[in-house]
């Protein structure tokens, strides 16, 4: 026997090669293929996000690099009051199609803020209390009816909700409150609330039902009423999930376009009155992008608005996740 053969024999003895049946080998291969496929999917999502951001930012960048655009839409023109008519005090005006374009973002910010505020004021209580009822108080059969129906509301296209707000809600609200303008922040905000209630409800309900049964039993055993249990024990325990629900709703409210485009009247007014017509950031992009000359200053401004909307939701999500962590820490910290 020569040495090589001895070594081979020795190796074979010390490290037994696992004998895979062809079946197991196939399974292993399949496993790898599937893992590779889903990894690819995950990175496709990330790649799409990055590409969108790069494209939008690139189109907006012309605003800061081209001399003509910098003159027409400098940061001070976008964010500080300007004299737009001789003999009038400086004001924030959005009139991008004009001999002298006025491109103040402030009326658009105010518009987005107003509609979002109205919709959150309505949708958060409705969504959270609705979820609390469904999770804690509703009889089982009613709950099984309530959940799918509210979730069905999420499936209604926003253009239908917008149409409803425009034709029905606007008239009803004007008759009821004697509003000066038919289409205003309240109508648009309520229409928007219809779209975000199901979002808040669904996520909040999930987090409420995820609270361990033992919490409720302990609370009831200590003599708390069902309401006290729901309000003081279950709701705080589900706080991170409820917060996430509100953030999701808020994100949808900021970005939602069609309802606001149809029901807000789209007048870029600077005022605190919720009865005034408003023009939101997203509706401005939708209304003006169709006509704009590609590569013009106006075009870049619309993309710049897109970047701002992106940044808003991004920062909001960061803040919310930081806050959620703090809440969880406080809850678990005080318990131990």
């Amino acid at each position, binding site marked *: 026997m020569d040495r090589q053969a001895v070594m081979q024999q020795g190796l074979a003895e010390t490290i037994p090669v696992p004998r895979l049946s062809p079946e197991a080998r196939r399974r292993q291969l399949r496993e790898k293929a599937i893992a590779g496929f889903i990894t690819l999917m995950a990175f496709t999502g990330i790649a799409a996000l990055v590409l969108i951001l790069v494209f939008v930012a690139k189109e907006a960048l012309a605003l800061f690099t081209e001399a003509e655009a910098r003159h027409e839409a400098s940061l001070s023109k976008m964010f500080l009051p300007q004299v*737009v*008519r001789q003999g009038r005090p400086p*004001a924030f*005006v*959005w*009139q*991008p*199609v*004009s*001999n002298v374009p*006025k491109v103040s973002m402030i*009326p658009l910010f105010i518009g987005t803020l107003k509609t979002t505020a109205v919709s959150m004021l309505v949708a958060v209580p409705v969504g959270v209390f609705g979820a609390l009822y469904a999770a804690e108080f509703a009889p089982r059969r009613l709950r099984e009816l309530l959940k799918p129906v509210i979730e069905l509301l999420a499936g209604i296209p926003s253009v239908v909700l917008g149409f409803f707000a425009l034709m029905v809600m*606007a*008239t009803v609200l004007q008759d009821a409150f004697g509003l*000066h*303008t*038919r*289409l205003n922040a309240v109508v648009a905000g309520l229409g928007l609330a219809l779209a975000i209630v199901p979002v808040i409800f669904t996520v909040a309900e999930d987090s409420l039902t995820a609270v361990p049964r033992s919490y409720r039993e302990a609370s009831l055993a200590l003599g708390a009423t069902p309401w006290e249990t729901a309000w003081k024990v279950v709701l705080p325990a589900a706080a991170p999930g409820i917060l996430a629900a509100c953030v999701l709703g808020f994100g949808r409210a900021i970005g939602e376009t069609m309802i606001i*485009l149809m029901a807000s*009247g*789209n*007048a*870029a*007014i*600077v005022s605190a009155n919720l009865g*005034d*017509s408003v*023009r939101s950031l997203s509706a401005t992009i939708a*209304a*003006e992008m*169709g*006509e*704009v*000359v*590609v590569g*013009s200053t106006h075009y870049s401004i619309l993309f710049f608005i897109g970047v701002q909307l992106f940044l808003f939701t991004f920062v909001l999500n960061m803040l919310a996740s930081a806050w959620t962590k703090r809440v969880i820490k406080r809850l678990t910290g005080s318990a131990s």
Partner: protein
Amino acid sequence: MKTFLKSLVAVLLVALPVAAQAGTVTVKGSDTMVILGQRWAEEFMKKNAGAKVQVTGGGSGTGLAALQNGTTDIAMSSRDIKKAESDKLRAKYNTAAEEIPVAKDGVTFYVNEGNPVNALSVEQLRGIYLGDITNWKEVGGPDAPIVVYSRENSSGTYVFVKDNVLNGEDYVASAQTLPGTAAVVNAVAKEKHGIGYGGSAYAKGIKELKVKQGNEEIAPTADNIKSGKYPLSRNLYFYLRNKPAGEVKAFIDYALSPEGQAVVTKVGYFPVK
């Protein structure tokens, strides 16, 4: 054999896009003109079997942008081409834009049926749309705030009113902008103190305002618009990159023929010939 296949592929590659385009005329632009364009296209296609005319809207600016990008043969526009737009066209194709007036339209101001005001001067309209006049009682109406409706700034009508009524100044910030003349008509019909504007072709179910000039009150009627007596009338245009030829020329010739101009009247606009 191989070379034969290669040349076949090459021929197909060159010929296919041409074949797809031959006989199809694309028309795009002004929402005010979409109905008119479609009616022309239907009649034209009925008379010329095999010809295909595709009409879509989007606004005058959209049509002229498509003309620059080369995605349409004819741009419909309810306003004159802007200098920036014709400059772009010249830079890209080295041709001046070909302008063909195909119909006339009057911009009509509407108020709610219940409003006692019947006529306003151009100055009063300007005051209302600039925000200097904010109450109906300043122009002889009831004591109620005026709710001003306007069009989105992609609309040719928006630019027309801005140029011809506001003398190029900006609309008051509180003017609500709605997508489409139909939306404005609908809003004014529902808003007791509203005022809006649009093409006369759409004006149904609300009151059309006459325009005061001196002591005369001129209604936006066919005769007044055709003769140019009504102060707020405008031309509706077809814009092309080059002089019309082939199918495009046939379609435009049809639109300007007595038959085509009869369609204009039927749709609610006014003939140019």
